């Protein structure tokens, strides 16, 4: 087998001084592959033409050099077609890695969803003859035939909705609910400061319900400020150095969840991993059976939230002693931000914890990094 990659890289090294252990290793492995497989590994003779904004003359010039164009021109293909396809995939991945390209894609989705929503709204309000209007700023589809497709597609969609075929998807398949959970998880991981009001219903007899506060920023910062079952303040948090705790008695401490749990044992069991909403959603995705329920408003006249119910999978009931039995999530329909979250534990047995914790989004306001730092609450500890 000839190894054009190996040879050309060797040439390249000689002429362009590309000394690198990485290249040497790659050349060596390529040579070994060549000996083992006896196949040819050609480099497609192309410069990719990926730019979305490239003028036509530039595009034509580069297309003429492309692998596929080479085939089209009647020349023998110089590379395995699937290898060529891999190169095109790599080009596409590199292009899509640009934030600007992803924004363009999101804009296309926005424009299509806008049209679909507009048509379904027209249908719901019994407006006759749904029309398709291209909004300003939305790139129009080219040609009359495309407009005709839009109209026919929109009409078809309107008819489907009017027929009530899929407006009510109660008991929807798990895969849809999991996708929704994914988007909520994504939103929870955003480095945005959010404050939640947390109502705790204790499992200990005679203990009163109490209200705590949670500040959370994405998946790695939080502060849980609890007035405590006996009126003595408790604080848990996570800053750039890791988990920390300010117990009601004793010095502040740092450590992992497991090291902290005994502190609260015998009083009101804290379920620290479930104080961080991104972590909650992470567990929901992997350890719970999720179903989508009909959306509902959290207050009269408020916007309808997306609602998911999650039940702990049986195999985790024996092993995860701190996991809530059920988790119910209300999230914003567009942003997927958690508006309300209910964690419920069994009232008896090994897995007994607080009966319930209910998180309610209070505000979404940037706060200083100091809010999450142990040093803010224990000046002499760092």
């Amino acid at each position, binding site marked *: 087998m000839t190894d054009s990659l190996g040879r050309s890289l060797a040439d*390249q090294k000689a002429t362009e001084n590309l000394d690198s252990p990485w290249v040497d290793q790659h050349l060596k492995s390529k040579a070994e592959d060549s000996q083992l497989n006896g196949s040819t590994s050609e480099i497609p003779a*192309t410069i990719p033409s990926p730019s979305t904004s490239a003028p036509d003359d530039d595009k034509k010039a580069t297309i003429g050099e*492309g692998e596929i164009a080479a085939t089209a021109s009647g020349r023998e293909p110089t590379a395995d077609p699937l290898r060529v396809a891999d190169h*095109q995939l790599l080009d596409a991945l590199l292009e899509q890695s640009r934030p600007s390209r992803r924004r363009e894609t999101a804009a296309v*989705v926005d424009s299509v969803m806008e049209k*679909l929503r507009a048509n379904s709204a027209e249908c719901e309000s019994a407006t006759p003859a749904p029309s398709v209007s291209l909004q300003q700023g939305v790139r129009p589809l080219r040609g009359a035939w495309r407009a005709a497709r839009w109209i026919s597609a929109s009409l078809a*969609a309107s008819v489907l909705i009017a027929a009530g075929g899929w407006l009510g998807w109660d008991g929807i398949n798990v895969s849809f609910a999991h996708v929704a959970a994914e988007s909520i998880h994504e939103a929870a991981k955003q480095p945005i400061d959010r404050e939640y009001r947390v109502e705790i219903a204790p499992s200990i007899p005679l203990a009163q319900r109490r209200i705590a506060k949670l500040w959370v920023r994405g998946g790695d910062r939080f502060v849980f400020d609890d007035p405590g079952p006996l009126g003595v303040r408790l604080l848990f948090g996570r800053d750039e150095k890791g988990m920390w705790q300010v117990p009601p008695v004793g010095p502040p401490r740092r450590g992992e969840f497991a090291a902290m749990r005994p502190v609260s044992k015998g009083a009101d069991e804290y379920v620290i991993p479930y104080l961080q909403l991104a972590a909650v959603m992470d567990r929901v995705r992997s350890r719970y059976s999720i179903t989508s329920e009909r959306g509902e408003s959290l207050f009269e006249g408020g916007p309808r939230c997306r609602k998911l119910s999650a039940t702990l999978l049986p195999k985790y009931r024996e092993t995860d002693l701190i996991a809530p039995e059920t988790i119910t999530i209300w999230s914003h*329909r567009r942003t997927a931000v958690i508006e309300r979250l209910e964690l419920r534990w069994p009232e008896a047995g090994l897995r007994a914890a607080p009966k319930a914790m209910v998180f309610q989004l209070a505000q979404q306001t940037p706060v200083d990094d100091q809010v999450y730092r142990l040093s803010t609450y224990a000046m002499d500890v760092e």
Partner: protein
Amino acid sequence: MDAKDLFEILVRENADMLMVYLRAITRDATAADDLFQETMLTAWKKIDEFDRSRPFGPWLRGIAARLALAHRRKSADADLLFDVATLEHLDHRLSQVQTLAGDTLDEKLDAVRHCLAALPAAFRQAITLRYHEELRPAELTELLKLSGEAVKKRLQRARALLLDCVLAKLSTAEVSS
């Protein structure tokens, strides 16, 4: 949650991957955008045919592949020479991409970024200028003070090395999953 919300979630989740697929097929941004919109509309119409026990992304790509083949039949564009085998191959590759770590395509593309970071500096520079800075070959020639042929070869070699690295990561991720 109603159908419109679900459809939107699913489409947004899979939009970047679908666009990658279409751009890999067509190598043309405009054609890819048009096929993308047609795919969404068709998916909207056919959503009740979707087997909900299966993932949405491959179903969406299946629609896109059929539309692309139909588009190719009608088009005189000689650049659209993909065949069913190529479409299937790309679909498989994207399924492998799906197995990479991360929830979003951007997170999954960390694998590509790691490979790019491991390239020799001259190769990394060429790729970065071409794809991230979106410089055209003529601009690269001027900037790098190389001949057009040298720029072309440098990009070829950089892409070949990058592709090998990415394919290795995809294979590993697929096996791990």
